[in-house]
């Protein structure tokens, strides 16, 4: 049996580990356009900040491919898939056959159409790969005296990038089009606390505006004009407005692509023996009760793992994921889950707790007696209990008054649920 995996991040590694646990002998081929040993993608901002070194970037130990008997083809890019002949075309013009194929090609950073950026300009980056770290560092070394940076986008990547550049001693301005940071998951209160945390470290945050155009010279970028009219000088611009599923190589193939590669509950595409997982996949969202890509690491790994098991002959169902983020920026830990941005209305009940002095904010969103959203700022202990409540669709009507309490824990919950969690042998989730 030949398992071919395209990708080298969480979903791919999840699949490798799942396949190997079931099939110790099958051939696993892993193809990645990146040349590095599998590394932790979210750590690139820590690496840029200097908080971790190259040695700590590895997502799995150095001997991982060896112990898992994985044949790697690093630096090879897949450019086409022939699902009839079950072959892959590589940019190097080689053709590979597969029995089972997993597409875990992740996302491609979105580069918005900004005036002045029609041509590549030195000092303008996206930030989603180890390669980006090296490029940024090379630029910083070459240009020298880079003091001012602009980060376009106040999402996860944008904030972690800003934090890293702050740690390198730069003056950072975050430009976000929405009226708040982390607009997909935060409300204004949480966003404001994040703004303050960033500002305490010297960052500037401008909301409800975007970059109208960039200008530069021979050495690279010199500044931007915002749509609000102001001009900001900078020697560096990071575009962090998001990623889109990397599916270009599927053009002309029968594999169904919507916003991502559409997969069923077994992580299989509409084409037999072709699976997809991770940021590239459009899988079931258990809160939305519909399929959509949720580009986050925990789901990537789980999807990859489930795809791997199914590829290796098991029959396992992906019960769906939900949007979730744990992010700590400038010393402010936060967690957001599900429909966290909701405001109170006829359908949703919202409960909040704010202790501005301690820097603690909690918000629980309830729909139909069940938790569907959560924000924790400043204090993230036991956040996972809420995740469990959301995923398991537990009715919390009777313990609603406890949800925001400091003492909230498993013991606030129904004895049966609690006992299962405390004493269930090898709790299955």
């Amino acid at each position, binding site marked *: 049996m030949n398992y071919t995996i395209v990708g080298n991040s969480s979903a791919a590694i999840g699949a490798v580990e799942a396949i190997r646990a079931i099939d110790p002998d099958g051939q696993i081929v892993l193809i990645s356009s990146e040349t590095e040993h599998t590394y932790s993608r979210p750590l690139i901002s820590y690496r840029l900040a200097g908080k971790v070194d190259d040695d*700590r970037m590895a997502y799995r130990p150095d001997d991982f491919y060896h112990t898992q008997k994985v044949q790697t083809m690093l630096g090879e890019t897949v450019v086409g898939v022939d699902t009839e002949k079950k072959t892959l075309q590589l940019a190097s013009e080689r053709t590979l056959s597969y029995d089972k194929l997993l597409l875990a090609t992740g996302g491609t950073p979105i580069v918005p159409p900004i005036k002045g950026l029609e041509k590549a300009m030195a000092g303008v980056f996206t930030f989603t790969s180890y390669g980006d770290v090296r490029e940024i560092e090379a630029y910083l070394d070459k240009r020298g005296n880079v003091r001012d940076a602009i980060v376009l986008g106040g999402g996860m990547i944008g904030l972690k990038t800003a934090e890293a550049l702050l740690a390198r001693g730069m003056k950072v301005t975050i430009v976000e089009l929405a009226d708040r940071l982390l607009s997909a998951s935060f409300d204004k209160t949480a966003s404001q606390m994040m703004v303050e945390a960033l500002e305490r470290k010297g960052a500037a945050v401008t909301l409800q505006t975007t970059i109208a155009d960039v200008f530069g010279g021979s050495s690279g970028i010199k500044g931007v004009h915002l749509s609000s009219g102001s001009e900001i000088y900078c020697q560096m611009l990071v575009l962090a407005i998001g990623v889109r599923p990397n599916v270009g190589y599927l053009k002309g193939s029968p594999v169904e692509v919507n916003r991502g590669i559409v997969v069923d509950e077994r992580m299989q595409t509409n084409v037999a023996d072709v699976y997809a997982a991770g940021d590239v996949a459009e899988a079931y969202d258990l809160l939305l009760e519909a399929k959509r890509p949720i580009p986050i690491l925990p789901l990537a790994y789980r999807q990859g793992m489930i795809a791997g098991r199914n590829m290796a002959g098991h029959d396992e169902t992906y019960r769906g994921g939900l949007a979730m983020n744990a992010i*700590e920026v400038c010393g402010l830990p936060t967690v957001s889950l599900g429909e966290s941005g909701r405001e109170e209305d006829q359908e949703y009940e919202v409960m909040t707790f704010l202790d501005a002095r301690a820097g603690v904010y909690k918000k629980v969103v309830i729909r139909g007696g069940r938790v569907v959203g959560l924000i924790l700022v400043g204090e993230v202990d036991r956040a996972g209990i809420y995740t469990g409540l959301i995923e398991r669709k537990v009715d919390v009507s009777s313990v609603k008054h406890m949800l925001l309490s400091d003492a909230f824990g498993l013991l606030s919950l129904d004895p049966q649920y609690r006992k299962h969690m405390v*004493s269930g042998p090898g*709790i299955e989730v």
Partner: protein
Amino acid sequence: MKRIFAREELCIGCRLCEIHCMVQHSRSRRILTAMLHEKDILTPRVKVQESGQLTFALQCRHCERPRCMEACMTGAITRDPATGIIKHDEKRCVGCWMCVMNCHCGAIVPGRESHVASKCDLCAGSDTPACVANCPNEALIFEER
């Protein structure tokens, strides 16, 4: 594998498990030194939850399918293939709290001072975890189920 199970009807809420857990995972492993001089950097990996008369101690369940391990972005959380213990390499942890967000039991504790996640390692290497060995009422039991 052997796991720790809490018997809430027997937990007396004394929190000796928390103390002995901290000592076990301290540098000195001596209770006075640990609790008087290292306390600030110690985080108990077992936490007693208490509400009225109901108390029990909870630590990592060492799940068959650990959500924390799936979610760990650095690869710091791994399963020891020999023992089944879900291990956490604090040297690789950067404190992103992904695991905290994904543990449905709420058993992973964010270390305030250490800034890394703390979780039970079943006192790897010893026959009986410290919390079990020091529970005065045998409310914690270490067994195969």
